[in-house]
């Protein structure tokens, strides 16, 4: 089966891609899928994560994945194939970069598949070093962000049997913004929430998942607390935004809104996609000082 990538691959257009690949019973539509990249003209960082997650989902189901692209790749940095090549997407899925001169851009990290077991070390060394260098700020000043992302990996560990996350990030210096997209291809957050509250739709389940202390005593024991902490740090403290799509549910949290919004989408997302947009102008240098604890 041939699947043509959308002209622009963004969070909004990913549904047509997912629908072409995944059937209503949540199975791949064919044993072999040929992804045609030739019409792709733009891709967001979250698109890199979505594509990677989809490929991982298909690989897990022993689907043969083929990539079709134009042999001549322009060196224009706006070319999405060049962007994917520089993000190491093709290296991961074909074993080599398309161009010999492909290199990870200063404004991005390479696409990574991070296991839970390696996640702390990866966050501490790779991602935080890149963010510290990119924002010209000490790693110590980024502790809140590091622990936030730790909450996501703990959430993956709680909700996804795979314990693995696809992650990609980009810095937009002109917009004072860093976008970080993480996705797992597990069973999704709503499935686990419904073990406790079976009547909830996927969207309602995501809304429940970010309530503080929805439950801390079931297995997984951290439902709600980790995602609540994530929302609090990203939206309230950093004034950034957060988007979660898990199965059919969508959750949007934007700074300035007193409430988050959740909804149900017709298209199924295979796992959980989390996009975080951090404002860099609200991240300040913190001196390394201990603080005395008081109850």
């Amino acid at each position, binding site marked *: 089966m041939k699947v043509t990538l959308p002209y622009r691959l963004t969070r909004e257009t990913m549904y047509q891609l997912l629908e072409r690949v995944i059937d209503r019973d949540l199975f791949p539509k064919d044993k072999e899928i040929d992804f045609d990249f030739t019409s792709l003209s733009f891709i967001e960082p979250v698109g890199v994560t979505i594509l990677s997650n989809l490929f991982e989902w298909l690989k897990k189901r022993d689907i043969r994945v083929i990539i079709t692209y134009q042999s001549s790749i322009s060196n224009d940095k706006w070319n999405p194939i060049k962007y994917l090549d520089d993000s190491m997407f093709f290296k991961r899925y074909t074993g080599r970069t398309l161009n010999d001169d492909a290199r990870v851009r200063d404004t991005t990290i390479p696409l990574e598949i991070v296991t839970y077991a390696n996640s*702390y070390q990866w966050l501490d060394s790779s991602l935080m070093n890149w963010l510290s260098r990119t924002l010209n700020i000490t*790693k*110590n000043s980024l*502790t*809140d962000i*590091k*622990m936030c992302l*730790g*909450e996501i990996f*703990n959430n993956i*560990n709680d909700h996804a049997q795979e314990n693995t996350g696809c992650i990609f990030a980009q810095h937009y210096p002109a917009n004072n913004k860093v976008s970080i997209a993480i996705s797992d291809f597990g069973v999704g957050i709503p499935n686990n929430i419904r073990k406790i509250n079976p009547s909830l739709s996927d969207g309602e389940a995501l809304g429940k998942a970010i309530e*503080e*202390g929805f439950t*801390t005593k079931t297995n997984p*024991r*951290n439902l709600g*607390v*980790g995602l*609540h*902490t994530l929302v609090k740090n990203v939206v309230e403290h950093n004034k950034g935004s957060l988007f979660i799509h898990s199965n059919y549910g969508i959750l949007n949290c934007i700074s300035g809104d007193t409430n988050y919004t959740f909804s149900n989408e017709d298209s199924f997302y295979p796992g959980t996609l989390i996009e975080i947009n951090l404002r860099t102008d609200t991240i300040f240098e913190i001196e390394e*000082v*201990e*603080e*005395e*604890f*008081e*109850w």
Partner: protein
Amino acid sequence: MVTINVLDHVEHCYSNQDGAIIKSIIIRALSNNECVTISFRGVDGVTSSFVNTALIELLDNFDFDLIKANVKFVNSSKQINNMIRSRFRFEVNRRKNLVKVLA
């Protein structure tokens, strides 16, 4: 008085498993009527998973007043302190509002 330097027992304060190791040491000390000082020297931050297991689950065994009187935290940071305080605040209030009836 027992001093627990967390990095002597776990590599980081990240997972439920990390928390479970620290929790068992605290429970042992409190059960022996000893005060506990927990040192976060070298730790830059903690996740809610760690705090839930290491500290919040102590509420299953001990009153909050006993924990406050006998557990101290040193060499901590703003992120660590905020996480501990906010998790205890929420859980203690939640437990106060629980109503149990015999069915």
